[in-house]
């Protein structure tokens, strides 16, 4: 499958084919089409992913949920979730 490039300035959302279940360590995400299970290893990352559709860009969603020093690592985590098709463009 063609992989999408993550642009932090673009608008993104949680894929409609993905279900997310909260767990103590973060959350489990399941993609109903690829049948892949993905682990989201922090609560903050789960908050960012769920908030993506409310913002004009991924950067805005990160800024409103993540402390300044950690923002770069969350952009990298979102990029990985785009590759896993958990997060998709809108």
């Amino acid at each position, binding site marked *: 499958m063609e992989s999408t490039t993550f642009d932090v300035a673009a608008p993104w959302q949680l894929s409609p084919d993905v*279900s997310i*279940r*909260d*767990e*103590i*360590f973060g959350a*489990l995400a*399941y993609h*109903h089409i690829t*049948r892949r*299970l993905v*682990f989201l*290893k922090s609560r903050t990352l789960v908050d960012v992913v769920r908030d993506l559709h409310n913002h004009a860009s991924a950067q805005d969603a990160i800024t409103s949920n993540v402390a300044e020093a950690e923002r770069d690592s969350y952009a990298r985590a979102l990029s990985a979730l785009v590759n896993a098709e958990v997060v998709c463009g809108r």
Partner: protein
Amino acid sequence: MAANSSLRDRFERGLAAPICLTWELTYACNLACTHCLSSSGRRDPRELTTAEALGLIDEISAMQIFYINMGGGEPMIRSDFFHIIEHAVERHVGVKFSTNGTRIDPAAARRLASMDYLDIQVSIDGADATTSDAIRGSGTYDQARRAMDNLRDANFGQFKISVVMTRESIEQLDEFEKLAQGYGAELRLTRLRPSGRGVDVWDQLHPTLQQNRDLYKWLINRPNVLTGDSFFHLSALGDPLEGLNLCGAGRVVCLIDPVGNVYACPFVIHDEFLAGSIRDGGFGKVWTESELFRSLREPGNPGACGSCGSYDACRGGCMAAKFFTGLEMTDPDPECVFGHGETALAAKRVSIRPTPSPDHSRRTPVALTTR
């Protein structure tokens, strides 16, 4: 994917709901495979009614369990089979079911192909009729191949070919790979367990040490071959295989049997591992409150394996394989790659192997023949 160790520790303490829930729909089966892990054959008169089955799916959906592995017995034998799987898919609960394929005629294949969120595993136990039929019964290999043909012709998409690794089938890995490629199917290999009727054929059919080493080498180069985390005991040989590499019993997996009893995993249908019944307050109550599950989520005792440098890789192996070969939970896996399990078994002055509690076998299972 290989989980990192902190995540694995987290999983070993249990999750809000299972990652992987197996539900055996019926003990009825039209075949009588020698290694059947649920000792299936005859339907149990107490099996869940259609209303109970649909209610269970509603609870599974509310608990956000993403998909169910359905098996049996032969799940397609239930007259409400399509009703049940369609209800699950409507509730956004994915279904993966295991079948011997005998009921997948062209019409059934077309109906299955029309559904989303559905995954099918067709079982064979050899890459040719002689090898497979020795385990599953005469004519069963050709029937399974017809089911695969029908799924392909109905454009079902990618299904799975599921094979239990026996001393015979493990010699045919490359043939299985070719067969799967020919159908555009995924190959899934799982471990033979001494569970159910499997205990009767274990000594004769479980792979040798050398065969297990060869399997590990074959799998490590093929991350796309699925194993259901079956072979984590082999990860002591080097890099971890794909998967969580842990015993998920009562932690991330469990089994609901056809009468609604909940067991720690699909391979321990035995009173010792019975956590409760969904008829007694629902599945969620068993998952969160069962004393057995709570104890399984406590840190494990490495026992005899504590002094081995590979415990972190193999976690002492499979609980079911130990239990049904008469080993203690603190003993090594009977197929320990360093031979410690064989030593432990040999040291038992008297080996008392537990027999599976519910046995629904018909009177004459397939007589095991070897070539």
